């Protein structure tokens, strides 16, 4: 036999068509031979043929048994099972469609949320030994003065740890124990980039020259930044992130070596960073990577390589192999002490936590996003898990119904000799196949679904994370699929194989129709309970949304276009920046269709607002030392433009110059908190000394305005101070312009862009949006919860309808003889349909009765995400219960009608 012949003979029978045909020939020859033998003995041809066949036995069985010896029995039968299962599934397309699509939704939702969880909470950077990476934080009382802090705090083991260091302190940490760890530093800033003739803002991060190499980030193209780039006076170079390369240069490999203008200076592109790398701060997108030494070019007055009082460098360490976190920490602690000794300046407070280094896991970058996202993600995962629970219950229900409907088929197959184990396998194959199809579909819809959730939940800024189906996500999906298919495939299968043959074979017998109605009712009750929980949650979030939308922000957000300008990153420093902002504002106000324009140092309803201690000049009460207020720098007719009513006094205007006495507007909350009463106008305060900031000049209250929401609709009003730009030229970092336009503010974007460009072509505008969007985006997360729970609640209710209809219809079919007798004995059709309805309603009531306490227990967990709605809000619970009852009635209505139309005579005759 040839080699290929041998190979072919080793293949499973389905592939061995030739061999199978040979076997057929062999058997045919045997029977012909036997026939001939019998004819030779004198039998007639027909009888010889018939007896030869009879004596041969079951041809198919002989064929199967013989093929089994070919050694591929299992796979062969498996494939046969699959083919049969496919045929069965194709024969009932509605069942298959409902089963697969509901499973796909359940699995898709879980996979989507889990891929978010994996991307945000678990996944380490794809670098060598990510477990050696540590973020370096500090806690306690720094003995260095703090002029400005650019960073964030995170709580770890009850200690508040701060993220950033002054550059000199970072240097000392980096040099203290190179044998134990390598330390890299990074910081981020907004820069103005001019490439291919267009100016725009770019998110940049500055890194020390050793960072890429130590962390292990290899560029996709060209080279990364190296230590020799990181010197003052070295040639100016930049590496682009993959995203920016894609966005600005269409992935043109020719850009490496070209020069672009960054903040007015020519800089050469040396390389492209890998696609997965989005910086060390998950959630943020970066465009450019520059050497730390070029930080002066950012125009930021808060970043300096020399000043010990500006805190802005974040540090990431790679521990050398075999070095423990404790050893590294001990070495760093010594440096902290030295630093402390070197700065006698601010050792005023004692008895506080000493300044200590804190090392946190750095394998996945900084923890802010993880901290923010963990509870929303857990909530979404719970919702997704509930959805999967419902789809499983629904499928079990469908399969039980089908198992019952197919009991005659099963009985026939058992009767003609199919093995029970074979049947079990057949059914298991069917459910496994359904589950696999559902999982495949679920996997396919998961990534887009995850992106939709992300876009919905993130609000204004798209969250920059890499969502993908990688190892753990796919494994989880497979695990879910297996568990699901076992869960819903086993019960009907076992039940089917236990079937008693003879009653099942009798057509119309109730055993054949009945199969497990009690189990199915329980399942429906459970589904109702779980749907109740989801719908209640949807109700709570919807009401939260309504309440939030109804919150008065304190100003009129309609027809307001907002955008930002960052003069510092385009080369304007100090007073020059204030001047250019003022020029832009005036230019806008003289544009015909624009009614008014104003500027604020933070976007209203943006992320955060500055807050500082103040001293009340004329106050003799107990507030001294603990009075604080939010503060904003504003320009133009801020209050009248935004429609914020002034209660007393006046708005700052042209009279208030750097030379004249300092003035400010305060809000009602300020007046209330510091008991100014009606005499607020004319009273005075100053900013207290904190950190390196000297006590400010005395500021006189010129006016009192109504309270305005600055950062969140949820918070109570805080005391706030509005300072005029004219007297605080350094106070406006990135300026947010608020422009009152005609309706549809976004159509004014190009007008505004042109007005700014006319003034300086190198001055781009950023973050263009309407003020109304800015407000709605501030409760994006709540809206996401409402949409998710609402959509899944609706889905759950739809599945309940399917299940309830199925069970009720089945029960009616089973009870037809009984109903016939009842009607023959005089029952009215209305009574009969009520009887059917009542049963369905009692199932629903049981589910609701279980769902309410479950809901009460679970909604308490989302209290933090609700606004002005109690977790036990009776309205939401009642609404959910009413909805479930309505749905149940609708589902049972058709079978109930059918029951009522039972014709007694027909039924009794057919029995």
């Amino acid at each position, binding site marked *: 036999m040839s080699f290929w012949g041998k190979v072919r003979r080793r293949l499973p029978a389905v592939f061995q068509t030739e061999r199978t045909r*040979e*076997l057929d*020939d*062999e*058997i045919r*020859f*045997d029977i*012909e*031979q*036997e026939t*001939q*033998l019998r004819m030779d003995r004198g039998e007639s041809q027909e009888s010889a043929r018939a007896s030869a066949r009879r004596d*041969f*036995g*079951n041809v198919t*069985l*002989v064929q199967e*048994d*013989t093929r*089994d*010896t*070919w*050694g591929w029995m299992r796979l062969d039968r498996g494939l046969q099972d699959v083919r049969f299962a496919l045929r069965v599934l194709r024969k009932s397309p509605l069942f298959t469609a409902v089963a697969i699509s509901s499973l796909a939704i359940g699995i898709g939702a879980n996979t989507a949320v889990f891929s978010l969880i994996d991307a945000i909470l678990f996944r380490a950077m794809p670098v060598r030994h990510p477990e050696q990476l540590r973020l370096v934080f500090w806690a306690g009382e720094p003995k260095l003065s703090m002029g400005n802090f650019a960073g964030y705090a995170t709580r770890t083991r009850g200690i508040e740890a701060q993220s950033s260091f002054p550059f000199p302190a970072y240097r000392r940490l980096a040099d203290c124990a190179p044998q134990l760890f390598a330390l890299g530093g990074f910081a981020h800033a907004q820069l103005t980039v001019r490439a291919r003739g267009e100016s725009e803002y770019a998110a940049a991060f500055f890194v020390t020259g050793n960072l890429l190499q130590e962390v292990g980030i290899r560029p996709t193209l060209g080279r990364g930044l190296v230590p020799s780039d990181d010197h003052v006076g070295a040639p100016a170079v930049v590496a682009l992130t993959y995203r920016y390369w894609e966005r600005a240069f269409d992935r043109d490999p020719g850009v490496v070596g070209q020069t672009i203008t960054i903040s007015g200076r020519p800089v050469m592109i040396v390389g492209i960073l890998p696609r997965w790398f989005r910086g060390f701060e998950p959630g943020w997108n970066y465009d450019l990577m520059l050497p730390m030494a070029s930080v002066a070019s950012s125009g930021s007055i808060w970043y300096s390589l020399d000043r010990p009082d500006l805190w802005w460098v974040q540090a990431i360490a790679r521990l050398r192999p075999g070095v423990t976190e404790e050893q590294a920490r001990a070495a760093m602690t010594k440096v902290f002490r030295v630093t402390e000794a070197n700065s006698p300046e601010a050792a005023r407070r004692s008895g506080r936590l000493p300044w200590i280094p804190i090392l946190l896991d750095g394998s996945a970058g900084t923890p802010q996003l993880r901290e923010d996202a963990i509870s929303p993600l857990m909530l979404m995962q719970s919702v997704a898990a509930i959805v999967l629970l419902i789809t499983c219950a629904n499928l079990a229900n469908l399969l039980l119904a089908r198992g019952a409907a197919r009991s005659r088929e099963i009985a026939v197959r*058992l*009767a*003609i*000799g199919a*093995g029970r184990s074979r049947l079990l396998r057949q059914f298991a194959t069917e459910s496994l196949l359904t589950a696999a199809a559902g999982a495949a579909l679920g996997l396919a819809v998961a990534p887009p679904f995850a992106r939709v959730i992300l876009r919905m939940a993130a609000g204004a800024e798209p969250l920059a994370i890499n969502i993908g189906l990688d190892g753990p996500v796919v494994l989880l999906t497979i695990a879910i699929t297996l568990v699901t298919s076992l869960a819903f495939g086993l019960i009907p299968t076992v039940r089917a194989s236990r079937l008693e043959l003879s009653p099942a074979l009798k057509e119309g017998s109730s055993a054949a129709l009945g199969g497990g109605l009690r189990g199915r009712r329980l399942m429906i009750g459970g589904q109702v309970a779980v749907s109740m929980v989801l719908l209640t949650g949807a109700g709570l979030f919807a009401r939260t949304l309504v309440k939030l939308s109804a919150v008065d922000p304190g100003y009129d957000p309609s027809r307001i276009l907002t955008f930002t300008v960052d003069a510092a990153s385009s080369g304007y420093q100090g007073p020059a920046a204030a001047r250019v902002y003022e020029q832009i504002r005036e230019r806008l106000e003289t544009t015909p269709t624009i009614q008014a324009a104003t500027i604020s140092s933070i976007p209203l309803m943006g992320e955060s607002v500055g807050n500082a201690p103040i001293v009340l000049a004329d106050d003799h009460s107990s507030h001294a030392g603990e009075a604080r207020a939010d503060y904003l720098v504003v320009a133009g007719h801020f209050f009248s433009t935004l429609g914020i009513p002034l209660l007393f006094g006046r708005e700052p205007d042209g009279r208030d110059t750097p030379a004249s006495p300092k003035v400010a507007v305060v809000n009602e909350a300020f007046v209330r908190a510091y008991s100014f009463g009606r005499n607020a106008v004319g009273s005075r305060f100053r900013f207290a000394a904190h950190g390196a900031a000297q006590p400010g000049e005395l500021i006189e209250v010129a006016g009192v305005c109504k309270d305005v929401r600055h950062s969140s609709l949820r918070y109570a009003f805080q005391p706030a101070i509005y300072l005029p730009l004219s007297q605080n030229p350094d106070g406006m970092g990135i300026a947010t312009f608020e422009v009152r336009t005609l309706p549809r503010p976004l159509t004014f974007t190009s007008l505004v862009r042109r007005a700014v460009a006319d003034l300086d072509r190198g001055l781009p505008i950023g973050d263009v949006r309407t003020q109304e969007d800015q407000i709605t985006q501030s409760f994006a997360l709540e809206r996401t919860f409402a949409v998710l729970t609402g959509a899944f609640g609706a889905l759950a209710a739809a599945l309940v309808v399917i299940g309830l209809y199925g069970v009720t219809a089945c029960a009616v079919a089973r009870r037809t003889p009984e109903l016939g007798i009842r009607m023959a004995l005089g029952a009215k059709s209305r009574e009969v349909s009520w009887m059917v309805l009542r049963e369905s309603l009692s199932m629903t009531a049981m589910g609701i009765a279980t769902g309410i306490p479950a809901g009460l227990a679970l909604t308490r967990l989302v209290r933090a995400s609700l606004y002005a709605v109690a977790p036990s809000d009776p309205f939401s619970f009642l609404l959910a219960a009413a909805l479930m009852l309505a749905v149940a009635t609708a589902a049972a209505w058709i079978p109930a009608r059918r029951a009522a139309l039972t014709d007694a005579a027909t039924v009794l005759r057919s029995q």
Partner: protein
Amino acid sequence: MTSSKHDNQGIELLQGTLDMMILRTLQWGPQHGHGIGIAIHANSHDALRIERGSLYPALHRLERQGWIDSEWKTTENKQRAKYYRLTRTGRKQLASEESRWNRMVEAIACVMRRPREE
């Protein structure tokens, strides 16, 4: 509902003896499946009838084990038939099975012939 595949009208075959008898039958030359069945039937003086449900799986198994191999040939009646033939290893296998069989028959015979002790 299913019937045993090894249900013989005559004597129940001992486990493994079918393979041996097939090998033995093929010692006289190549033969097709039907012929092997006839031969065993005839040589057992009509005592053994080999079920096709046992014969064909056994033939294919023996072929897979390499003790026999097969070839399609044309019979005297110009029909195509699959002829099985003993291989070299099959011959060795037959010898060892035969001697094992003989030892067993003797041993059983000894037990059965032993006079009853009163």
